[in-house]
């Protein structure tokens, strides 16, 4: 850290502020708090996909040692606010989230239907197996392809003709159909699961009858606080939510789930703190997933590479009780110059649980189809796919007809092409070899809205010269605290060692959920604001000093550096922040600032982050084994606050994309509507051996229209466009175009 003992910390590869906690095991995740007299809860899931509970026999479970309660729809405490319409922090979807233990209806297989509470985990696990349930079975529909004709326009779109999920036509509808040079292809992605390494868990503790504390795995501290306050009809300030460390989430912690309420019910019933940790199987059924999707892209282009039309259709899976939607088709509407663009989005309700946004939600799905189609189109006209994309690059948003706040995608493309050695790529597939292996190169572009929300940060400058900031944001892995410390160090002129950023508690000033790649833009702006106010306060303090050396000082003619204020013109007169407070007889200086995006600017500009991913793969022609041998991921994500953590995020997205492309996919036994792939031995997330060297490169130019730190988000664009880059590289290696993920050797060998 010594190297960064200067104010210009932004951009530096500073070590994480919580690194030591994480490598020593001291970091406490939600299931790891020690509370007196804690009981353990285990959920029982349904074994049918649709129908109702005929009878539930809990006698043996209740008589098992250590069992404190077995709760289900017949004997559960009724959650007073369980008429909740939706997740309160989110735009209202049609239908409603699953309410736990409310009636005997079964909507999906492994739906939580009972909770067993015991004094030890082993006893709760054992007793959970003794609960016997009989069902009235109804015929379920879980097979996407068999039911695809039942897909519908989402209700939000039906209700509001202006809603973005409605059909979209720019120019002429389906114009590609009558063009001479065209492609038309269908793409499928299976259901994929977030599977963060930390199992979803919660400790629920009723500190008083109307006072609830939860240690909860969530990306949304305030959202969770509001949801539980509403559920239980208690004042918001009576609910405390702690999520200091979150062991990954990738979207599945964006709203509350039935298991959380089950634990809260249990804690109320047994009048003890209750810990509930899902099993790995339950992570596949109880906390959402990236929905199975079918897509079709039609595209036409001129011989010299101008796209003339794109039609992109998508159908995404949802549950029977709640409509889940995502912006699968957004990239198609704004990324390329095509004068004619048509998009149609539908959802397909099935007897499965409701999906939830998973890293690069929608866009990652859509980009797989769009960016593969682009590669197919370029091949038809015999053009290099990089050149094809450059020709169709847009200098303003063709959908909204607005200028971009910033867009440096071309630079990113050039950096990446150089680094991967794109020159080695041959137009014709199968031309490059490494011994027996066929070598191929592919690329894919990603984009995601450069979102920014409203956040509040409280900062306390102490007379020992240290600064403590607090905000109710979270860190699911990107390094939120580290980035905030660097932003404050830069803006206040204080060494990062003297700054602490506290997060993950509802006791701190509100921040939105960590989602939509918006945290640094949102919370970072509030940190920026709080630092400006602190500087002003310090300035007026020194200017008004009896010691007149700072007379007439303004923020502009002062230098803030290394924790000292000095006159820029005569730096010898300087005072430490701490001494300034001491002179005022102040033990500390406290400032709370809120920052929101400028709505009028947001109407004048279109704001997106961009990524481009390059993959080199090797495919064995006899076995179909696929190895990603090199990856380069480049981003135009505005100012990079921390080269190390930002680079790591890009790498992580690339690894996630490798999983999407090559290994991940749910398989369901439709006779029972139950997943076959429901643990990490059957559902394959990438392991060390699947991950090659991955380089991440940043354009690193600020977007000051977006926010004062000039940042744009990274989390989503890190994965959006990776899967098509790999699929395209496989085509370049083999001449085989696999349009259904994951691309496994059997699929490759069968073509």
């Amino acid at each position: 850290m010594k190297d960064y003992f200067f104010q210009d910390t932004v951009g530096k590869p500073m070590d994480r502020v919580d690194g030591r906690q994480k490598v020593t095991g001291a970091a406490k995740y939600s299931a790891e708090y020690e509370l007196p007299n804690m009981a353990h809860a285990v959920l029982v899931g349904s074994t049918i996909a649709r129908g109702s509970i005929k009878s539930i026999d809990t006698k043996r479970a209740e008589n098992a040692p250590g069992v404190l309660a077995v709760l289900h729809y017949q004997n559960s405490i009724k959650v007073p606010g369980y008429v909740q319409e939706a997740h309160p922090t989110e735009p209202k979807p049609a239908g409603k989230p699953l309410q736990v233990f409310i009636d005997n209806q079964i909507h999906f297989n492994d739906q939580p239907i009972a909770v067993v509470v015991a004094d030890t985990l082993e006893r709760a696990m054992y007793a959970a197996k003794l609960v016997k349930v009989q069902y009235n079975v109804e015929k379920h529909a879980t097979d996407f392809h068999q039911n695809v004709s039942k897909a519908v326009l989402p209700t939000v779109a039906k209700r509001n003709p202006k809603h973005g999920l409605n059909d979209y036509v720019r120019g002429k509808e389906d114009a590609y159909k009558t063009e001479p040079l065209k492609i038309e292809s269908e793409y499928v992605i299976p259901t994929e699961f977030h599977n963060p390494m930390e199992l979803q868990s919660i400790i629920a503790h009723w500190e008083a009858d109307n006072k609830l504390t939860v240690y909860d795995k969530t990306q949304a501290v305030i959202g969770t606080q509001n949801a539980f306050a509403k559920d239980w009809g208690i004042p918001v300030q009576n609910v405390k939510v702690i999520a200091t460390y979150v062991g990954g989430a990738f979207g599945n912690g964006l709203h509350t789930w039935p298991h959380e309420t089950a634990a809260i019910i249990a804690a109320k019933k047994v009048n003890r703190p209750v810990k509930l940790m899902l099993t790995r199987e339950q992570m596949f059924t109880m906390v959402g997933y990236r929905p199975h999707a079918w897509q079709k892209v039609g595209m036409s282009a001129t011989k010299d590479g101008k796209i003339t039309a794109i039609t992109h259709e998508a159908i995404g899976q949802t549950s029977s009780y709640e409509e889940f939607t995502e912006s699968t088709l957004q990239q198609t509407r704004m990324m390329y110059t095509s004068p004619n663009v048509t998009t149609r989005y539908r959802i397909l309700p099935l007897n499965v649980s409701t999906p939830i946004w998973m890293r690069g939600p929608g866009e990652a799905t859509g980009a797989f189809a769009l960016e593969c189609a682009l590669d197919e189109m370029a091949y038809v006209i015999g053009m290099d796919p990089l050149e094809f994309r450059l020709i169709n690059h847009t200098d303003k948003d063709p959908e909204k007809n607005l200028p971009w706040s910033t867009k440096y995608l071309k630079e990113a493309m050039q950096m990446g092409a150089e680094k991967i050695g794109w020159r080695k790529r041959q137009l014709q597939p199968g031309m490059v070899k490494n011994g027996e292996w066929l070598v191929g190169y592919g690329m894919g572009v990603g984009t995601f809205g450069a979102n920014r929300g409203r956040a509040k940060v409280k900062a306390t400058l102490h007379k020992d010269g240290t600064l403590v900031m607090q905000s109710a944001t979270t860190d699911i892995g990107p390094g939120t605290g580290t980035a905030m410390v660097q932003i404050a160090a830069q803006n206040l002129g204080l060494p990062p060692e003297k700054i602490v950023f506290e997060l993950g508690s509802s006791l701190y000033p509100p921040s939105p959920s960590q989602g939509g790649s918006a945290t640094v833009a949102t919370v970072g702006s509030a940190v920026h604001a709080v630092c400006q106010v602190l500087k002003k306060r310090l300035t007026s303090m020194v200017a008004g000093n009896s010691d007149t050396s700072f007379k007439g000082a303004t923020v502009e003619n002062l230098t803030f550096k290394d924790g000292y204020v000095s006159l820029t013109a005569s730096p010898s007169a300087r005072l430490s922040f701490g001494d300034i407070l001491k002179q005022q007889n102040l033990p500390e200086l406290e400032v709370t600032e809120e920052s929101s995006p400028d709505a009028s600017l947001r109407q004048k500009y279109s704001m997106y982050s961009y990524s481009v991913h390059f993959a080199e793969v090797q495919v064995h022609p006899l076995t179909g084994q696929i190895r990603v041998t090199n990856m380069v991921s480049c981003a135009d994500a505005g100012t990079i606050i921390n080269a190390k953590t930002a680079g790591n995020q890009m790498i992580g997205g690339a690894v996630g994309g490798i999983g999407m492309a090559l290994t991940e996919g749910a398989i369901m036994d439709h006779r029972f509507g139950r997943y076959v792939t429901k643990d990490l031995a059957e559902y394959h997330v990438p392991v060390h051996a699947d991950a090659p060297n991955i380089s991440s490169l940043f354009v690193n130019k600020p977007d000051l229209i977006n926010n004062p730190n000039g940042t744009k988000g990274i989390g989503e664009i890190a994965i959006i466009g990776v899967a098509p880059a790999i699929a395209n590289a496989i085509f370049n290696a083999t001449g085989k175009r696999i349009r259904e993920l994951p691309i496994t050797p059997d699929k490759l060998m069968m073509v």
Partner: protein
Amino acid sequence: MPQDKFPDQHLPEGEGGQAQHSDARRTFLKQSSLLTALALAPPAALKAAELKFEEKVAAVFEQVKVTLGINGKKQKLSIEPRTTLLDLLREQLHLTGTKKGCDYGQCGACTVHVDGQRVLSCLTLAAMADGKEITTIEGLANGDKLHPMQEAFIKHDGFQCGYCTPGQIMSAVACIKEGHADSDDEIREYMSGNICRCGAYPNIVNAIKEVKNGGHKV
């Protein structure tokens, strides 16, 4: 001792075996040894027996005494035979640095060292570790001085959320000791039992290489 009455207690659990195994044990108890048991039974068991709660009768006898060395300290414990080393560490000893990522030996988050070897604590019954030396992530550093692998993970940012990290580090230390860190590919192969969903793999490989090549004692 009571546990002698249950000769199957050290059997590994089979596929989905917990319920069957325990069921069998309880049936055995009911059929053949309830009378013997009652002769020696503490009052709690008698009361349970009166109420015909066979489960509760069984519970009274189901404790195994073990002595484990944990991070250099001897601990005498009385545990249920079905308790895994992972749950013992996390739930009873509050050593939560060892993580549960699956409970089925599929993710590596629970990796600890047992007598110097890397072991998945979720697949190890605590009773099987009787008399053994266990090192968890909490015992890796030398007081305030971090182990070189911990330093290297910080320097190379070998993690994001940090949840897989204790397991990765314990595995990485063992990987070098085993002599399985001679190339990037070898490291990747021998670390493949430790999943990082955040995908920090390349950084983890770099951290391991640095420790290996730096000639640090691991």
